[in-house]
């Protein structure tokens, strides 16, 4: 209870401080207010020519206006508006009115009457359009006021007959944003006849100006976006617009048709020139498909994109999109896809070299062939071979979305996706590989398709290869030949691009575990065993051999008969790989082999990983034995840290957890060591030198806590509390050390104040977690807070010192998923002996290629540091576009770093490394006590510190002196 009261006291205290700040700023506002409008008034009166007045207005528009002074400014502007003869000045004033009415905190209903008034007397079309724009701004500002909306709609309708397209455009925009469809009838209509806005807008679908037609459609879409339900009658009107001469009209019409089809998917529409009827969504689908072969690529992109989201379409229509009904000399011809499929199902593996196998077969009834109005026919076939890659990408995306919702369609579109792997633009290839991965649950690859897929493994782009590996991870293959083919191709890939090793191993791991029965018959061949003869033992370090073993061992996991085919050395290799590449090789139950791991712990549940258990156990041990004598604790911590670090190296999936815990224990160890120092017993003046260790420890703990907080992804709030707690302890330690080493009270006073603020801050941030921190340093500290607030620095230090010693070791709960951020610089490799020569004073571009793992939001956090031999350090912020995201949790940074320096006498090495920038304040604003507006944007983006997280790479450079 007492604690609670104390907290409340502090809370109130902080509030008071903030209010004071607010008052100060408010005072400033009042000072500037009158001058603003007055100055404008004077300026405008001074203006002799329209050009002058325009200049003043432009200057005025650069500065913001406070909400309270808006009205005054508006009055002055209006006054000048009435006097002004020049249209351009009136235009500017009108636009300013619009801007001003958007000011937050200002209610613009008071200027509406004036605006409508001046509208009626205005002659210039441009100014009229601008005034309507202003009205739009006013109207959107007051969405609740029905009467005003009605009135504005009325005004818009009146000006719809204007001869200028600009005015009509704005009127339609106004109607779209403010008009309502339902005749809200009874209440507050007050003489203003309610209008059927949809009909009014619809009338302008046939306007003579294409811009107005576009605006009308956009207005209609706007109505829809505002949640008003469009009537179905619009559908026919929109369909007519699909054959408009202008691309922007067609593009908007496609959208409108899509909207209607989503609103009324099930209603029935007649097919013209026949008695049949079909569902509206099918009809719309057919029409949009037709637009995929439009003359303008903008429309094509639009149409292709929208197709993807039409999931209600019947499967019959959907499948038509992939069917082009080939013919040759009026005879039906089968597509290459169909032929490939037939060949496959007939059991032949020769692939289409037979003479005349594409010869056209049956005759086609000439009357039945429909060359254009075949609706959905072949829409995707066209879209996928479009000239513009934007269209192709849109088509691939649409294909992906549709395939995800329809397994049968997924099966059918497979051939087309596979074909896209050979597209000439890399982006398209990549996109189609990703698409394929997304739908891979629904499909099984045929051998000929797999063949095409695997051919892409030779692609020289690393992105493509890795995407393909990911795809292979989750692909279903139908035959053992397929698996063999995949393995052979992957091995080829491995020899060609050795850097792909890890990715390939991972890929084979999944390939094996997905297809154990297909791998089984291949085992003798793969291991090259012979029934009678012993074969030579393969080289254990050969990545290709490891790849084969990974495939086999993962298959063997669910196939108990497989180990019988292994030869002796295979078992030995298994044991080795299980140890060294445990994330790739699963635990196998090998019959007749008493492997150590399985013998020791037979009672373990099979799914529980022994290494996981080891980790848990060692951590338990540490936490439970906290009341040991200091010497013992230190030793135990040291051992455990060593164990954990080793474990992290061995088990890459546990590396995050292990490192994270090890770091935490390391902090604790440092703290204990620091507190064990003799210096605490010695009189103050004597240990000036000895204090090095303690202050170094404090500093290191701080660093480590920052690493813990920012270098790991998946850290939850409960860990953050512990980390911050540790940091607080480090700060306390620092304070104590400084108190002991410095003489004089003044600096200490400031430090104390700061420390207490930190404690306060901690309390406010983690108030919800405080109950978990029973008996900890901070808990005790908060109990003594009132006393600390009033006591002198020396006393504070004394209290802190005893508390630090008494505080218990907090248990760090392990998060579910935790990964350490890491980065590897692939390029520059740092092995070159040839210095990069450039003229001093000019720049040289250094290509940097790095992979980042488990970095959250790398665009804002990852920086590049260049260290010159003279100690000068340069930090480079890569562009957001330089980061690619090849897979979940992985990023790739490909950028250029510009180096420059004054001339050197001989080449020297600069260090390039990646830094992780952090800002601990950025985490906080979620707490309710800070209002969103108060944190200035600078604080959010600023960098508090950086953590190096990659190995530095040395680059040999040589700036030459410039020649004279």
């Amino acid at each position, binding site marked *: 209870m007492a604690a609670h009261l104390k907290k409340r006291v502090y809370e109130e205290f902080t509030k008071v401080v903030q209010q004071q700040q607010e008052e100060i700023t408010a005072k400033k506002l009042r000072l500037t207010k009158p001058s603003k409008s007055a100055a404008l008034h004077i300026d405008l009166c001074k203006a002799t020519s329209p050009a002058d007045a325009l200049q003043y207005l432009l200057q005025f528009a650069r500065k913001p206006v406070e909400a309270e002074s808006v009205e005054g400014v508006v009055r002055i502007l209006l006054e000048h508006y009435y006097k002004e003869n020049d249209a351009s000045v009136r235009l500017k004033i009108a636009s300013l009115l619009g801007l001003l009415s958007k000011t937050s905190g200002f209610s613009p209903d008071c200027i509406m009457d004036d605006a409508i008034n001046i509208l009626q007397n205005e002659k210039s079309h441009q100014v009229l359009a601008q005034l309507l724009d202003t009205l739009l701004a006013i109207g959107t500002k007051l969405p609740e006021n029905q009467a005003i909306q009605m009135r504005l709609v009325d005004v818009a309708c009146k000006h719809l*007959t204007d*001869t200028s397209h600009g005015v009509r455009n704005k009127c339609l925009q106004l109607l779209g944003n403010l008009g309502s469809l339902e005749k809200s009838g009874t209440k507050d209509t007050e003489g203003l006849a309610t209008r059927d806005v949809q009909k009014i807008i619809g009338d302008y679908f*046939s306007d*003579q100006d294409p811009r107005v037609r576009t605006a009308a459609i956009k207005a209609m879409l706007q109505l829809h976006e505002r949640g008003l339900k469009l009537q179905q009658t619009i559908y026919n009107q929109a369909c007519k617009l699909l054959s408009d*001469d202008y691309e922007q009209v067609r593009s908007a019409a496609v959208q409108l048709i899509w909207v209607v089809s989503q609103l009324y998917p099930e209603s029935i529409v007649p097919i013209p020139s026949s008695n049949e009827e079909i569902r509206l969504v099918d009809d719309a689908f057919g029409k949009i498909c037709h637009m995929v*072969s439009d*003359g303008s690529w903008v429309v094509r992109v639009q149409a292709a994109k929208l197709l993807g989201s039409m999931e209600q379409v019947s499967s019959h229509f959907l499948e038509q999109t992939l069917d*082009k*009904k*080939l*013919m*040759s*000399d*009026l005879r039906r*011809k089968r*597509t*290459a*896809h169909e032929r490939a499929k037939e060949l496959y199902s007939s059991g032949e593996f020769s*692939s*289409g*070299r037979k*003479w005349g196998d594409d010869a056209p077969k049956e005759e086609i009834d*000439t009357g039945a*062939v*429909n*060359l*254009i*109005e075949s609706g959905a026919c*072949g829409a995707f*076939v066209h879209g*996928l*071979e*479009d*000239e*513009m*890659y934007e269209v192709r990408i849109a088509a691939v995306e649409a294909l992906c979305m549709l395939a995800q919702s329809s397994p049968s369609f997924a099966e059918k579109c497979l051939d*087309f996706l596979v*074909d*896209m792997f*050979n597209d*000439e*633009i890399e982006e398209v290839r990549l996109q189609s590989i990703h698409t394929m991965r997304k739908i891979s649950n629904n499909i099984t690859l045929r051998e000929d398709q797999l063949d*095409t897929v695997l*051919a892409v493994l*030779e*692609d*020289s782009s690393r992105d493509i290869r890795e995407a393909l590996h990911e795809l292979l991870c989750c692909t279903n293959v139908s035959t053992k030949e397929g698996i063999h083919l995949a393995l052979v191709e992957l091995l080829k890939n491995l020899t*060609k691009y050795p850097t792909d090793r890890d990715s390939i191993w991972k890929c084979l791991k999944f390939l094996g575990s997905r297809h154990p029965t297909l791998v089984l018959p291949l085992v003798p061949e793969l291991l090259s065993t012979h029934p009678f003869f012993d074969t030579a033992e393969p080289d254990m370090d050969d990545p290709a051999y490891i790849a084969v073993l990974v495939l086999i061992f993962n298959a063997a996991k669910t196939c108990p008969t497989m180990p019988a085919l292994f030869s002796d050395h295979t078992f030995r290799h298994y044991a080795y790989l299980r140890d060294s590449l445990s994330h790739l090789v699963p635990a196998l139950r090998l019959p007749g082999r008493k492997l150590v791991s399985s013998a020791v712990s037979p009672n373990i549940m099979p799914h529980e990983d022994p290494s996981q258990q080891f980790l848990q156990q060692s951590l338990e041990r540490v936490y439970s034995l906290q009341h040991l004598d200091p010497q013992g604790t230190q030793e135990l911590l040291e051992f455990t840290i060593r164990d954990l670090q080793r474990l992290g190296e061995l088990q890459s999936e546990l590396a995050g957890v292990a490192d994270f815990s090890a770091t935490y224990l390391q902090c604790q160890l440092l703290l204990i060591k620091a507190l064990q120092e003799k210096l605490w017993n010695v009189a103050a003046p004597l240990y000036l030198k000895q204090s090095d260790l303690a202050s170094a420890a404090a500093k290191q703990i701080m660093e480590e806590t920052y690493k813990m907080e920012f270098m790991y992804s998946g850290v939850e709030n409960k860990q953050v509390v512990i980390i911050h707690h540790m940091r607080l302890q480090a700060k306390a330690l620092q304070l104590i050390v400084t108190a002991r080493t410095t003489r004089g009270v003044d600096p200490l006073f400031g430090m104390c104040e700061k420390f207490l603020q930190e404690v306060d801050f901690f309390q406010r941030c983690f108030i919800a977690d405080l109950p978990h921190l029973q008996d900890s340093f901070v808990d005790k500290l908060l109990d003594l807070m009132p006393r600390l607030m009033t006591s002198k620095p020396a006393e504070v230090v004394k209290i802190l010192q005893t508390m630090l010693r008494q505080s218990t070791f907090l248990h760090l709960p392990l998060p579910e998923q935790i990964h350490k951020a890491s980065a590897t610089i692939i390029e520059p490799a740092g092995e070159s002996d040839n210095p990069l020569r450039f003229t001093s004073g000019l720049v040289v571009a250094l290509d940097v290629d790095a992979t980042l793992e488990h970095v959250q939001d790398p665009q804002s956090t990852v920086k590049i540091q260049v260290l010159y031999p003279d100690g000068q350090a340069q930090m480079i912020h890569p562009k957001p576009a330089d980061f690619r995201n090849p897979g979940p949790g992985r990023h790739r940074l490909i950028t250029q770093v510009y180096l420059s320096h004054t001339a050197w006498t001989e080449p020297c090495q600069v260090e390039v490394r990646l830094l992780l920038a952090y800002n601990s304040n950025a985490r906080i604003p979620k707490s309710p006590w800070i209002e969103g507006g108060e944190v200035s944007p600078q604080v959010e983006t600023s960098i508090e510190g950086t953590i190096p997280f990659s190995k530095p790479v040395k680059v040999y450079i040589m700036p030459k002196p410039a020649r004279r």
Partner: protein
Amino acid sequence: MPEIRVTPLGAGQDVGRSCILVSIAGKNVMLDCGMHMGFNDDRRFPDFSYITQNGRLTDFLDCVIISHFHLDHCGALPYFSEMVGYDGPIYMTPPTQAICPILLEDYRKIAVDKKGEANFFTSQMIKDCMKKVVAVHLHQTVQVDDELEIKAYYAGHVLGAAMFQIKVGSESVVYTGDYNMTPDRHLGAAWIDRCRPNLLITESTYATTIRDSKRCRERDFLKKVHETVERGGKVLIPVFALGRAQELCILLETFWERMNLKAPIYFSTGLTEKANHYYKLFITWTNQKIRKTFVQRNMFEFKHIKAFDRAFADNPGPMVVFATPGMLHAGQSLQIFRKWAGNEKNMVIMPGYCVQGTVGHKILSGQRKLEMEGRQVLEVKMQVEYMSFSAHADAKGIMQLIGQAEPEHVLLVHGEAKKMEFLKQKIEQEFRVNCYMPANGETVTLPTSPSIPVGISLGLLKREMAQGLLPDAKKPRLLQGTLIMKDSNFRLVSSEQALKELGLAEHQLRFTCRVHLHDARKEQETVMRVYSHLKSILKDHCVQHLPDGSVTVESILIQAAAHSEDPGTKVLLVSWTYQDEELGSYLTSLLKKGLPQAPS
């Protein structure tokens, strides 16, 4: 009656020697001037004597337009301009202008040097002919003379291929030449805006074919080549030096690079290097990919493809050879074919269309024994494959283009009669436009109704606009004004302005009419009755009773007088001006019916 006349001299229901005469609004234009691959006699060139028997062609033709550089579209050009004699302008796109002479020279060499033909055009003639050429850039409108203008659109097919719009006043014809609606490895797709020509003359090579996706074609092609090469066989790909060859080269080049293959690829004839040079230059005419990447690497700078030497044909081991010409009718491709035909490991891939009568056509139709010159019989053991790499639009593509351009009439050329028939029927059925397919020498005449532009003064237009409500596109509106025809242009102006311009005085035209009324009452009363009657009927008009005893309705005056003979009859004098004719005649008919019986 104005009309457009079209006469194909070549390519009418046929493929080869494209040459179409078009007369439009008194202008005569010749579209393409090609040769025929299947003939070696006079029939290979179009019959220019059709145009004129004696006299210079220049007097009869306003211009010649060449759509692209294939010989069946430009092969007869030097013959036509230098030997028959034509000095007018010849229009073609810059790539065509650059590449055309190379091909003509090559053609000349084969004809003269190899076959020893006399009376053929010379190198100098080609040069002279090319001097008459005027380059037209894409979407550039060129004024041939005051009235005739032409405009080029992108057509795909080969580098520099273009479709041309020929326009005189409001009448226009679009000639497509050869075009391709699907993009390929090096060119984009044909495109035209919605220009609504009176006539669209389109090629129809693949009138009855709907082609498979090009990706399958490409994959098939690569697979066939790859397998043959792996088997140790030789692959012969007969191509025309330019066009498909470059596409296939890019395809094989990228494939070789990706698959890291070592077998050599050769490209025959020296003219390729020159031609490739032009391909490197005219990057803007290629597709999106090449246009975008050429800064890093020009796709036409091949790494794996080398020049071919005749001796290489006998080298052992696998190889791929591109050799000209494409239909195996002569030259190097035929030589190599004869060398390799006997080995079943080898393969010949025909990537394009073959005209009847060529060796290519024979082997494609399954003939395994060929009779060569000198009664030799060549047995073909090598595999024969056909890959439809020909860059013509298929039936769907043709329909697509017609849909894009929205012509009033369609005329089919450059295709076989039987196939055209089908497409013609489809076009008429689906677009409801007339479609024609004339044979060579047959003339098609299309009546046109050219629209005549009339200028209208803004004041008059605004005045009319102000009177009515919104202009409605569907409803005709009546507009009064004066049409002035002066110096062969038409203007519609208000009558006042017309008077002023022509310096005429305005004449008032007044109609008067007497209406007899049986009314025994006094004149004054009759007038009052007429007034009240009109007032009750003509509510929208201003009806006034003037103090002098007359009634006015708008500007129409009505006076009453007693009949000189019969006092029981009153005579109403109605007078109105010409402008109020409508109201005036209505009033008289109203008054003739008599006044309603007053309640008296």
